[in-house]
């Protein structure tokens, strides 16, 4: 009997744990967001997070986008060659980059770089009593540490994705023209014909959601870390893994919402 019930009980416990985590994360997000409309707002922390998330992530996001665009062009050329529709490459590159690869790859890169850093920084502050010190100095830690980072993440990622979109298309263009023998003007014309405002806008909406999720998971795991260096390490891992999974889940949900007709 136990052999049957034990796995079910374990599954139930895991499900309840997941629901509890989701609830705690939602309450954390709501509290942080409520500080957006209650002064003071810590602009210095916001701008420094914006620069950290946006500006300093530019190189890694740019390189990722450039090579991704190039790889799609190469792979499409091989695949489409079987059906003699190589001319569709420009459209495929721009569609894939603006709708999916730009937001998702930029999001994953930022999750690894910025989400981990946020979690480690706030986690270290937690285990060294710096967060408690903020409270004793009449400063709400949520307002000071979390809210500016959430806003910065939400605003920075769309900017990064816009750059990623341009560079991704440029990657595809470079490979197609330099290696695959496409005419530059034909490629650009085909790209512009395939480029739809809706694709770019939805990509940017996705990016804003991803940026919010990355900052939320980074702050939440750091804020709730316990147990010294090991706890901070675990929180950082949880922040990156959690953000990556949520990012892909929301990517599906948003794609379904905007594009499944």
């Amino acid at each position, binding site marked *: 009997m136990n052999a049957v019930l034990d796995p079910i009980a374990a599954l139930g416990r895991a499900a309840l744990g997941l629901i509890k985590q989701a609830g705690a994360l939602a309450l954390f997000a709501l509290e942080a967001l409520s500080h957006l409309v209650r002064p003071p707002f810590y602009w210095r922390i916001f701008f420094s997070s914006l620069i950290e998330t946006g500006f300093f992530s530019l190189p890694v996001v740019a390189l990722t986008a450039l090579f991704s665009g190039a790889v799609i062009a190469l792979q499409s050329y091989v695949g489409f060659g079987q059906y003699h529709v190589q001319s569709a490459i420009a459209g495929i590159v721009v569609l894939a980059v603006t709708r999916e690869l730009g937001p998702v790859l930029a999001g994953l890169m930022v999750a690894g770089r910025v989400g981990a850093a946020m979690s480690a920084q706030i986690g*270290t502050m937690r285990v060294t009593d*710096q967060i408690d010190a903020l*409270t*004793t100095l009449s400063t709400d830690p949520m307002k000071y540490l979390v809210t500016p980072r959430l806003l910065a993440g939400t605003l920075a990622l769309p900017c990064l994705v816009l750059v990623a979109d341009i560079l991704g298309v440029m990657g595809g263009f470079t490979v197609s023209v330099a290696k695959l023998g496409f005419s530059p003007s034909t490629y650009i014309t085909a790209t512009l014909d395939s480029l739809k405002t809706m694709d770019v806008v939805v990509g940017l909406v996705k990016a804003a959601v991803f940026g919010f999720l990355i900052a939320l998971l980074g702050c939440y795991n750091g804020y709730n870390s316990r147990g010294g260096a090991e706890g901070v390490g675990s929180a950082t891992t949880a922040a990156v893994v959690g953000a990556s999974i949520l990012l892909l889940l929301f990517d599906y949900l948003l794609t379904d919402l905007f594009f499944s007709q």
Partner: protein
Amino acid sequence: MSTPPVSTPLGTPKIRIRGLHKAFGSKIVLDGVDLDVEAGTSMVIIGGSGSGKSVLLRCILGLIEPDAGTIEIDGENLLTASRSKQDALRRQIGMLFQNGALFDSMSVGENVAFGVRAKHSDRNGATPSRTQALQIAGGLLEQVGLDPSVGELSPSELSGGMQKRVGLARAIAGSPNIMFFDEPTTGLDPIMGAVIDGLIVDCVQKLGSTAIAITHDMASAQRIGNRAAMLYRGKLIWQGEASELMNSGNAMVDQFTHGRREGPITMELRK
């Protein structure tokens, strides 16, 4: 600059704690603590590791929510007061953390200036500008025996004793009516410990504050406190004059203060 004096009703202790309970899971950390701290008193709380000293301080500071009991400051129950009232009462408190808890993303001067700006902006008065706050911070650093040029360093460049001094400067930035010290001499050599104790006594006297310090260090306890109490397994088992600490007449207190292995206090190897 200084915190406006808060009128305490006649005969009311500055801090009054009654029946304070706190448990983490099945582990009872505070088990019905009653404690009065009169205004202007420096109360030292001693006790072994895990006896509940830090949890008691954190409950008063609002960092941990107790399960039951009352905590009154100036006769107002912190736990049932409105949020704004709680904030106002806790604004009177300055805290020196065990490891200093300096913000490592800021310079030393910015750490102290943060305390200056945070506490001043609370009182509906004009918040000092960043430059003004840094100037005030320089003066506070001097007050704790540090050259104002130390303000340009990062906290990680300071020794443990210097970090404690900076933490003290930040804690007194708002001229608090109540000061808490969490093991202020832990990790310091005896001379530096004595220096920190001297600074604490000076600051508390200058501000006319009520102080609670928790410590394992008997020399420090006698230097800082004029009253003392001992926590054991979440209960307050003794209160008296700090000068009586080494000869309290209580078997547990005497065993603890003299560091004897044999006695009524037994080591908990596993609980």
